[in-house]
């Protein structure tokens, strides 16, 4: 027997004669009741030390320009062009080349209010994962209509066959005396623009 057959045979033998488990209770909340979901999202993103900016659509380019300053900015190919006029479009830079950029600006797929999370799914306005990982500063633009209240609502909106990255605040660690400090290997600065 090869390892696959043997492990599966062991599993079947182990389960032989077991009583079937009861059905899974699903009485936990899937939707929320918060009166101001976008406000909650802003509050919770801020709580984990990301910078939150609530802006009107027309002010997005100016806000981004103010945040990235004179730094070199990389953008995914599908990002709305007027947002970052000086942005250099990703053409498949190596990791070392990406490390030469100061910032990256992307859109997002879903925001989760309760946990203050943004989720990227690699669509054209977000780009491949390395893009939002190597540069030290990530500016993420979230439309108000992309924000849901709960984790179950977010999973419902996401396509699991895409690569997904759930981001809640900047890179952090609790490995020294279980005290959280921000800024390890991922982007040490995270700005979240909420539009609308």
């Amino acid at each position, binding site marked *: 027997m090869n*390892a*696959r057959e043997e*492990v*599966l045979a*062991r*599993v079947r*033998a*182990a*389960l032989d004669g*077991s*009583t*079937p*488990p*009861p*059905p*899974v*209770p699903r*009485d*936990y*909340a899937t939707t929320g009741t918060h009166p101001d979901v976008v406000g909650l999202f802003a509050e*919770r993103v801020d709580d*984990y030390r990301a910078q939150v900016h609530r802006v009107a659509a027309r002010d997005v380019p100016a806000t981004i320009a103010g945040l990235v300053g004179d730094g070199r900015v990389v953008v995914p190919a599908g990002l709305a062009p007027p947002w970052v006029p000086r942005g250099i479009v990703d053409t498949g830079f190596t*990791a*070392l080349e990406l*490390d030469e950029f100061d910032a990256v600006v992307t859109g997002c797929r879903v925001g*989760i209010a*309760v*946990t*203050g999370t943004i989720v990227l799914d*690699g669509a054209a306005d977000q780009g*491949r*994962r*390395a893009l939002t*990982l190597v540069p030290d500063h990530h500016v993420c633009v979230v439309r108000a209509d992309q924000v849901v209240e709960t*984790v*179950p609502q977010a*999973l419902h909106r996401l396509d*699991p*066959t895409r*690569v*997904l*990255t*759930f*981001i*809640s605040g*900047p*890179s952090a*660690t*609790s*490995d*020294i*005396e*279980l*005290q*959280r*400090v921000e*800024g*390890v*290997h*991922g982007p040490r600065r995270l700005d979240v623009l909420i539009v609308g």
Partner: protein
Amino acid sequence: MPVHAPAGVGHLRGTQSFPDAARGALADTQLRRNLGGATATIRAKRQAVVDEVDDWEQLREAGSALKADVMARLPELLVQLEENVTARGGVVHWARDAAEANRLVVDLVRATGVDEVVKVKSMATQEIGLNEALEAAGIAAWETDLAELIVQLGHDTPSHILVPAIHRNRAEIREIFLREMPDVDPDLTDEPRVLAMAARAHLRRVFLRAKVGISGANFAVADTGTLSVVESEGNGRMCLTLPETLITVMGIEKLVPTWQDLEVFLQLLPRSSTGERMNPYTSTWTGVTPGDGPQTVHLVLIDNGRTAVLADEVGRSALHCIRCSACLNVCPVYERAGGHAYGSVYPGPIGAVLTPLMTGTTGHDDPNASLPYASSLCGACFDACPVRINIPELLVHLRAKGVDAERGGIPSGQDLAMKAAGWAMGSPGKFALAERAAGLSRVLGRGSSLPWPASMWTGARDLPAPPTETFRQWWARERG
């Protein structure tokens, strides 16, 4: 017959029994201070974010039932996972035990032609001793999680599931970094942020050049073939994203049936582990995604004693564990004895049941046979467990298994004591007799130097003097 995790490979068994190993740890006042401080911090954080969730108990019930469902349907779900990973360009491998898993991974790395790998913190690879196997094959394994890095640089072993270096304080970490990091700033302070930045600088070039990444998986979704890693620092994203080849090593129990089922665990895990509403980064991937991340993706499914756990219908629920470590952080025994006393990569309350179930025990001299007794059965672990594993019940179950396995042999002192107590309590007459005998013997007594095992008690506590009359006697006199 169930096949346990083999001895001699990996890290599931120490050399000393728990009481002996704990004795050394208890004498280390620095260790006790480090552990006390860290666990108090995390307990408070966890409680605060759990209290925010109105449906916490419903989520726990769902998490528990989902895991029970996974165990019951494990053969079909494993095959389904394999089909979905394969369909999306991944390669699935199976390993009966640690040695086979290590051989598989070494061969996969060798096939890429590189001599170094970057690793995401993974309990499964710690369990099987993968780093040692890679090293023996001439392959350098870079641990990239900060705590794993502290352990690796300190030539130490992990003592906690989530924070393997929990036994170290900032001053000790600074010393390790100064000693072991070749290009570290000699003026390094012990400020946690400064130490984290030193780790960033130390690993940056390694990440950017890495060709092979090795990870574990927090969850594998059967109906989509999706794997996930839950982390904080971004080292996981680096290892999962930048290399050309990704090898994921995962225990066969880490499945969830459907994508939507993750909604339960992604709420339970972060709040229970780091005490956050959500951990900074969660990555999910399904096979290979053209143009994004590793284009060669392997999944190694390991048994290594898990089917032996599954074969124990009561003990089976230990496989529900999602490795959050909440039970460690609330355990008064763990807090004082520390993780190394358990001798296994799985310490604390869950380790005290999972480890002996995975390895089996070879008699009462086996260090792992002492683990089910490393608990006062206070129940704090059961309350904290996000998937409601009834750890006290499992501990009692394993104690009973141990006692039953030894029946028929030469009775131990404990066997005789329990038999004597059982006899004495067999009827009120015999009990009254025993009460009088016990009272008499102590009054005539030997004072503070009672014979073993009572001497273990009187080492630090006074025994109460027996009352002049028992309740039974009083009742007969006053109300009888």
